């Protein structure tokens, strides 16, 4: 009798589970295939670290992450137990009396205690501490699942106290079995679907941060316009989201009080898919305003413990808007500048030539030069940043490095790529690649982290593979062991703080090189909140360098970041990206007297003054 009942409940539970899973799997399979298996070694490594060892989950929130890891490892450990008990309950085979099983149970006791401790902590956190990332309301479903897990462990531990064949023992067994089957039925439609999906999602996540596939214009791709344009990895991402809010609390736009919340974007994607209307416009699923607030700093994607890639969705949706002419007004001017002048400021080419002549730069020749220096829009045109470039040239010349520049450069296309103007990006990129191939450098050196990402990573999609290094990395290697002297001129010394550019610290992972240089040349580094691989963005990325007209009072990302840097108490802020420099100087100027006496200096100038 009880065997039959268990069969019935099991079939019912699996039926509900399978139906819901089928809906989601069908949606994922119906989407254009964007799954990628390249760099299999890197993927395997990430799988080991982030799935098995729960690295990402623990790294950002050590206590909650460890509690989660205990629950996760317990789940894995219990798989054999659950299977054995069900095989017995269903009358298939009884292995519960074997010596092997007795030993296994003994081992599981330790896991059960650990799971109880973990889930207990997580329940208290969710129900009473209520961190902001988990949302404004307490999810009843999450509490129920937490209690389910606790019940499973308690009923397991009770088996030591209750005889198997006693009434209490039978009830205990049935409670355990029913809770498992109820849990199973709840999984697919809830955030607990991540139990099954996240190992796959983590494996399929691109090994490079912010990898956004080129559009293929031959196939008339225009980006994400409607639900049917969402790729299979995006659909998988949408159903994997565990709603932990790590993306949210690390997002600089959200942190500055803007509308954008990356978690909401993923949940809106999920809702749009489940709504079933493949022709529904994504601009309606998201809000346009939120889409244009993303700086593409990558914090969301980099922090996600379940392998979600936010940037392809955000940039894809921007592409959909741009292809319909729905870019914000400020981008119209930028696109004009890029199209007509090949640089973001819209300045005349003679200005770059003036700088090239005044800095006595030679045109790159592989027979004569060791490296090609890529000036970028800032280095070529921005008077303030040209001082940093001159510092770099001075360092290179002092160390006998022979370098040259291209006769002509276009913007790498970074602002076009990140704002979704793919056509313009590809025009700029292919033009630059042709020029670079003709020049034939083995190594490119630049002071712009955005150029590093675009040339070093994005250009690979066109088959152009070149080594490009940021000046912080190049100069660190060049000056290893060189003595420092006291600063010349009015250069500040003593306590400094370093603002990691997102595209250097987070994207390129170069966090030690700039610090080593600062320390070597007498800097006493005061670390700001949010540093190294997880900096808080200056607000310039993703085309937002040009958007401060749009920003509502009190929500400027640059102001928030400047305050964080100010709170270190350091008198000098060292930057290593032209755009960070512009944004932070602007925030300092706007802060007026409250901004205090802070000096801004680019890393290259800092080093040059002390060499």
């Amino acid at each position, binding site marked *: 009798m009880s065997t039959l009942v268990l069969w019935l409940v099991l079939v019912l539970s699996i039926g509900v589970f399978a139906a819901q899973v089928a809906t989601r799997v069908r949606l994922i399979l119906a989407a254009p295939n964007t799954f990628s298996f390249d760099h299999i070694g890197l993927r395997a490594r990430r799988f080991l670290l982030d799935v098995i060892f729960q690295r990402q989950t623990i790294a950002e929130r050590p206590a909650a992450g460890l509690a989660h890891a205990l629950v996760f490892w317990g789940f894995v450990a219990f798989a054999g137990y659950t299977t054995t008990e069900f095989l017995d309950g269903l009358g298939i085979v009884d292995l519960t009396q074997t010596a092997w099983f007795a030993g296994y149970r003994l081992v599981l006791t330790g896991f059960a205690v650990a799971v109880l401790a973990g889930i207990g902590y997580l329940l208290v956190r969710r129900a009473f501490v209520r961190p902001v990332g988990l949302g404004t309301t307490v999810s009843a479903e999450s509490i129920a699942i937490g209690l389910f897990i606790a019940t499973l462990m308690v009923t397991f531990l009770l088996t030591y106290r209750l005889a198997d064949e006693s009434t209490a023992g039978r009830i205990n067994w049935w409670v355990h079995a029913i809770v498992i089957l109820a849990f199973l039925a709840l999984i697919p439609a809830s955030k607990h679907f991540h139990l099954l999906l996240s190992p796959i999602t983590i494996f399929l996540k691109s090994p490079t941060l912010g990898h956004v596939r080129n559009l293929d214009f031959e196939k008339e791709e225009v980006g994400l316009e409607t639900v049917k344009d969402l790729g299979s990895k995006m659909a998988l991402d949408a159903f994997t989201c565990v709603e932990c809010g790590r993306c949210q609390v690390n997002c600089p736009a959200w942190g500055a009080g803007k509308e954008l919340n990356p978690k909401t974007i993923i949940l809106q994607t999920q809702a749009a898919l489940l709504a079933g209307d493949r022709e529904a416009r994504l601009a309606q699923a998201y809000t346009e305003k939120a889409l244009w607030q993303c700086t593409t700093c990558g914090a969301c994607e980099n922090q996600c413990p379940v392998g979600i890639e936010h940037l392809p969705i955000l940039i894809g949706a921007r592409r959909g808007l741009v292809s319909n002419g729905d870019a914000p007004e*400020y981008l119209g001017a930028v696109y004009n500048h890029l199209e*007509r002048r090949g640089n973001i*400021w*819209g*300045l005349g080419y003679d200005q770059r030539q003036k700088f090239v002549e005044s800095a006595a730069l030679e045109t790159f020749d592989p027979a004569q030069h060791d490296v090609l220096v890529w000036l970028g829009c*800032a280095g070529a*045109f*921005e*008077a*303030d940043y040209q*001082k940093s470039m001159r510092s770099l040239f001075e360092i290179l010349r002092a160390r006998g490095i022979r370098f040259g520049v291209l006769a002509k450069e276009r913007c790498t296309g970074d602002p076009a790529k990140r704002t979704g103007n793919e056509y313009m990006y590809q025009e700029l990129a292919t033009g630059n690649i042709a020029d670079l191939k003709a020049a034939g450098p083995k190594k490119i050196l630049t002071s712009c982290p955005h150029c590093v990402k675009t040339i070093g990573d994005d250009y690979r999609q066109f088959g152009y593979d070149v080594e490009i290094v940021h000046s912080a990395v190049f100069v660190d290697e060049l000056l290893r062991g060189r003595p420092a002297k006291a600063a010349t001129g009015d250069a500040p010394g003593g306590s400094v703080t370093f603002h990691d550019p997102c595209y250097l610290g987070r994207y390129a992972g170069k966090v030690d090189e700039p610090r080593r240089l600062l320390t070597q040349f007498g800097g006493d580094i005061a670390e700001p909140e949010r540093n190294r691989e997880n900096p808080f963005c200056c607000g310039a990325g993703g085309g937002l360098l*040009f958007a*401060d*007209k749009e920003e509502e009072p009190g929500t400027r990302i640059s102001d928030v970041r400047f305050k964080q840097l100010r709170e270190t108490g350091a008198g000098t802020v060292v930057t290593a990206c032209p755009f960070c420099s*512009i944004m932070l*100087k*602007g925030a300092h*100027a*706007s802060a*007026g007297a409250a901004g205090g006496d802070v000096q801004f200096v680019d890393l290259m100038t800092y080093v040059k003054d002390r060499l």
Partner: protein
Amino acid sequence: MILVIAEQRSGTLNRATWETVAAAQQLAAASGPAAEAIAIVALGSQIDGVAAELAAAQVSEVVTIDDPALALYTPDGYTAALQQVIAELAPTLVLLPHTYQTRDFAPKLAARLERALITDATAVKPGSSGPVFVRSMFQGKLTADVAAHGPEPHVVTFQIGAFRGDQAGRGPAPAPIRAIHVTIDAAAIRQTPEAPFQEAKQSVDLSQAERIVSVGRGIKGQEHLPLARQLADALGAELGASRPICDAGWLPMDRQVGSSGQTVAPKVYVALGISGAIQHLVGMKGSNVVVAINKDPDAPIFEIADYGIVGDLFEVVPAMIAALKT
């Protein structure tokens, strides 16, 4: 005879008309020892004021077409009226300023007359058979010399700013004003104009200002703004500011110049204590002449300034005001 078509709206003359008068005078002077006569035609309803204003020009006459059907601009109405006037006056050239309104009806007028049209000319050169007009092509990458073929009159429009309106010659005595009557069939006008649209304008439109005095953080405090204002008044300039000044609330946001404010292109831009962050520079790089005053000789503003004064603005500006007042 050269005919200039004036542009007016609600009795206010478009200043670009004077530029076209200057172009006509240059063409007339180059036409030979017996300089060609110039007539200006103004059309609309109740335009006596406009006609009187135009009569100051050194031209042989000002012709008016005053008709209620022309009170508001319509391409059909203007074309019908101008076709008759051109037939009556038989000019060799018909010149217009290259305004939005001109862009709207000039091609239609030229087609109706079956005559050549040259648009957006920036200069005039003498040619072997009549004048040659210079216009830019391919977004300014090339300039082309264009001469009109076919029978006269040829229709030419001039880019705004290509000629200097203030250098149009004024006559010793007002030119005679003559009204010409034309018949306009109101029923043949297919367009029904709405009341002119008035954009809810920012209270200050710096983009139209000819001179701007802009203040930056070097002004130090709100209490020093009157100094900048005095300089602006002495120059007949509008007051602008960089972002920190407006962020601090010392001046309203609509005074802000730069990528986060207005984009301006005045004839003279005076930057007081502005270091010249690129975000500011891109908003004023179109200025004709940039005068920068800053204490810091390394300030980026000096990279684009035509005249730079390294010094304390609290010393320099009073001296400038004094010099302007003498």
